[in-house]
């Protein structure tokens, strides 16, 4: 039950909270994860499952490095999860494309990848491919595609299975997972923290890690954090299952290991509204058919909207509260890609170990106090 004291309380039971919990458990900590209510906004249940490097941190070197480390750590992480739980998250890192139908967007993105290449040197590689070369190597790509970038390090997992496997792994590692436990209040008291759940249950913890996704803003101020997050809506389609494998993975079109094709990648500021819209869904379908015309005849079986978790500048935040040093805040948009580091190096950082990574670049002091207004 949701009572008693834990060594560390993690507020948020999505991919970020569970990965962080797993790392802390492995470091010998006692951890309780408080997962919100069913109807809470849950990025971990609506996302695309990319393990993605290209384009990340082209203009912010620490993020490019951190993402590169995460992508490199994924095979071991997936193997470890399989050993712990017996379930395969379907990691496939055989490279990914970004397809373009607009020449200007294509050259802008190629330039960004050039900057990312300069930052990462031989720890990164990418190709810029013209539409015609692409159609030679990948017959079936549509005539409207003017070009593509390809990064051999990109990949994807089955995101829902990842969430399930992380939950099993946390439980298997001795963690406690309290469900339907939306934390409505948190107060520092006597060297620890008092948490109040929506059903008025109160629990205490010596340390706190706030990993509450879009629920972060409501609690951050109470712990002295200035970080606020905002929702960014993406809409997604999934098609009927196909017998064949698609001959590519892209950031907007991916085939799930079970056969369906997931199409997504839209961005909209719609506040906390996670509904889907006919216009955007039609646009997604049109994009998929432009890239790969054979999809025209394939039917969509489900569509949904989901909300990304965006910090003010879009980069991760790893912060220790100035008022309450035993409170940490962890938030990012790419919880799937970064999961292997959240489950290892981030725990070292939270524990204050000597070999912890230097995460200074991700501190919240880069945001103005007025952002928290």
């Amino acid at each position, binding site marked *: 039950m949701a009572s008693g004291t834990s060594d560390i309380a993690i507020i948020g039971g999505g991919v970020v909270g569970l990965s962080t919990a797993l790392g802390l458990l492995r470091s010998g900590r006692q951890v309780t994860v408080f997962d919100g209510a069913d109807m809470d906004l849950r990025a971990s249940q609506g996302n695309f499952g990319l393990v993605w490097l290209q384009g990340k941190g082209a203009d912010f070197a620490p993020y490019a490095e951190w993402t590169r480390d995460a992508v490199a750590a994924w095979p071991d992480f997936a193997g470890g999860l399989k050993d712990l739980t017996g379930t395969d998250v379907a990691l496939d890192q055989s490279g990914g494309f970004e397809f373009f139908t607009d020449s200007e967007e294509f050259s802008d993105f190629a330039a960004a990848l050039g900057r990312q290449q300069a930052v990462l040197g031989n720890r990164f590689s990418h190709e810029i491919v013209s539409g015609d070369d692409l159609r030679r190597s990948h017959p079936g790509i549509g005539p409207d595609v003017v070009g593509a970038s390809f990064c051999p390090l990109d990949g994807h997992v089955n995101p829902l299975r990842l969430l399930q496997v992380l939950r099993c792994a946390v439980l298997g590692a001795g963690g406690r997972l309290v469900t339907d436990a939306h934390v409505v209040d948190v107060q520092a008291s006597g060297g620890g923290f008092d948490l109040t759940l929506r059903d008025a249950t109160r629990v205490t913890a010596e340390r706190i890690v706030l990993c509450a996704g879009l629920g972060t803003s409501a609690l951050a101020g109470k712990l002295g954090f200035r970080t606020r997050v905002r929702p960014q809506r993406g809409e997604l389609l999934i098609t009927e*299952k*196909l*017998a064949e494998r698609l001959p590519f993975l892209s950031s907007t079109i991916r085939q799930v290991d079970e*056969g369906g094709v997931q199409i997504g990648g839209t961005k909209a500021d719609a506040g906390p509204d996670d509904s889907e819209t006919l216009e955007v869904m039609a646009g997604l379908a049109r994009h998929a058919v432009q890239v790969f015309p*054979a*999809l025209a*005849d*394939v039917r969509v079986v489900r569509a949904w909207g989901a909300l990304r978790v965006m910090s003010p500048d879009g980069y991760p935040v790893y912060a220790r509260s100035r008022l309450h040093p035993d409170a940490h805040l962890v938030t990012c948009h790419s919880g799937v890609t970064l999961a292997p580091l959240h489950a290892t190096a981030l725990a070292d950082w939270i524990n204050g170990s000597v070999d912890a990574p230097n995460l200074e670049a991700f501190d919240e002091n880069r945001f103005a106090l007025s952002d928290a207004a």
Partner: protein
Amino acid sequence: MKIASRFLTPPEPAATIQLTLDGEPVTARAGDTVAAALLAHSGDASRLTARGAPRTAFCMMGVCFDCLVEVDGRPNCQGCMVQVRDGMVLRRQRGPRKLMGGAQDA
């Protein structure tokens, strides 16, 4: 308005429709759905899932998708939502549909 006029005229009870299932002739009652016709024809599986498990119509009301069948070359049609027509060509699906249409061969 008479209440009866709001409904479709029921077909002649004895009227029949000829169609084929995997090339074999099947006789169905006019007005039946494809799923009903296949159940009446035999209780056999009308498709195999992606993992090879046998399935046939279950809910008969468009919800469960267990009744998927290829109708006139179009894969993944819900048999319980389509009425039989003379000359209809049905094929059982074995696993997921192919990208370029059609069911997977056995």
